[in-house]
């Protein structure tokens, strides 16, 4: 039994561990080649990460970025997801919003950073707006697609047993829609982090991006890389603590049904 479990664990964790080791080895080799001024070693970066995490300002920056992304994700979910739900069911709304969604999706995130800075000034609100306006259309499109691709024959089944419109939506449609939205939320979260850091960097409002701007100004490559590592680590942690359980809880059946 034990050798089987060990073999399964090796198969599950071995390849990802090998990938991480290869990445760190390449990083270390590049560090040796270019020197610490251009590229600090993984160990130096880890030390800088611990230095950041041992200070209150480091945690404040981390909290500010994560808080903004979380808030923006919630807002986007409410606005983009809500509109997507309505548009998925009503073709007139869908047809009306289709070009708007295309335009918003086509807008570069940097353009929004500049525009919101001009409109609202460098503030928490402007960053929140930027993240929301960038990921909102993604959640909108994802929700519309989830509504349209649901298995409507299941709703027919429910109708034959006398299910009301509300009961059909609640017990059948919503379950399918939410299971399709898991990966979309994952993409939106990752994009939200990128946009948040970029906006903080440009506006110099407290957060990981602002820390990077400071590190750039001081030519502190260790601190710059530490902030990058913190952002990536934070994203991975949230992905595994929030998005993956959400996907597992609502979308596990899709893997089984395939």
């Amino acid at each position, binding site marked *: 039994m034990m050798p089987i479990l060990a073999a399964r664990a090796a198969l599950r964790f071995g390849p990802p561990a090998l990938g991480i080791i290869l990445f760190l080895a390449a990083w270390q080799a590049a560090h040796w080649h270019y020197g610490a001024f251009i590229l600090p070693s993984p160990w130096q970066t880890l030390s800088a990460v611990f230095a950041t995490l041992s200070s209150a300002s480091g945690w404040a920056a981390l909290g500010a970025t994560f808080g903004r992304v979380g808030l923006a994700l919630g807002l986007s979910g409410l606005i983009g997801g809500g509109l997507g739900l309505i548009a998925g069911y009503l073709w007139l709304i869908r047809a009306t919003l289709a070009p708007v969604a295309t335009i918003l999706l086509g807008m570069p995130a940097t353009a929004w950073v500049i525009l919101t800075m001009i409109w609202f000034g460098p503030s928490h609100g402007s960053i929140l707006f930027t993240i929301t306006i960038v990921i909102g259309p993604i959640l909108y499109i994802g929700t519309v697609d989830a509504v349209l691709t649901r298995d*409507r*024959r*299941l709703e*027919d*089944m*429910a*109708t*034959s*047993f*006398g*299910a*009301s419109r509300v*009961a059909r939506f609640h*017990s*059948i449609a919503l*379950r399918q829609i939410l*299971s399709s939205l898991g990966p979309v939320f994952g993409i939106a979260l990752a994009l939200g982090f990128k946009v948040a850091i970029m906006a903080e960097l440009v506006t110099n409002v407290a957060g990981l991006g602002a820390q990077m701007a400071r590190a750039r100004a001081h030519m502190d490559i260790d601190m710059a890389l530490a902030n990058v590592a913190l952002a990536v680590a934070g994203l991975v942690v949230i992905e595994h603590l929030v998005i993956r359980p959400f996907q597992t809880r609502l979308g*596990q*059946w*899709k893997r*089984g*049904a*395939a």
Partner: protein
Amino acid sequence: MSGLTLATISHSFEARRVLDTVSLVIRPGELVALVGPSGCGKSTLAAIAGGILKPDEGRILRQYQSHGMVFQQSRLLPWANARDNIAYPLTLGKMTRAQITERTNAAAQAVALLPEDLDKRPAQLSGGMRARVAIARALVVEPEFLIFDEPFAALDPALRRRMQDLVLSLAEARGFGGLFITHDLTEAARLSHRIAVMDRQGKGILGSLTPPDTPRARSEAQIFDYTRNARNDPLLHDLVNVDERALALDCACDTLGFQRCC
């Protein structure tokens, strides 16, 4: 009383008329098989009988309190286990948890589902077990009338036969009437009191055929002889000879309309 009357039913999907003044009367306790070539509108008529679709024209007279429906490809909720799938129709009403559990267990027992299978999801069940779950789900509402829409079309012949036997024994034990949609003449001859033949273009019921004896008492030899002879009946010409390649691509066998065709 468990009869069903469909009077001059007409229905169109967008501009295409799928059913044109179709009338069918099913007497209380009678199991009627509706046969016809693919794309003739059988499933659309079943959907109308089951309350899924509202006909553009015509009247439906239901002489029963509740009906159950068994679909092609089972239509089980893929995220729910067999127990929850069976219980689903009851959760739509105002029954207590204890009542739902009791009725669910009784329905599962009626179709001979094993207790250990009740915790499995549809993807973990075989085709035959999925069909049993779908039948149990229809039985759980204690229907007086059952509508079967080609429920065993995807099963292999041996399994299909066992499912047919299950339907026959349940019909005898519970005395429900029903409408059984199929394009398999042998299945129709095995299960039904009467076989109604639908026009290939959905323009009404061409006529009815009555196999000998009652379904439960009918022997294999009787079914074989009847099916062989019936193939020469002019009523069944389209069922036996229609070339499915000549049918329009946008057949009307799916209640969602012909763009999402089976």
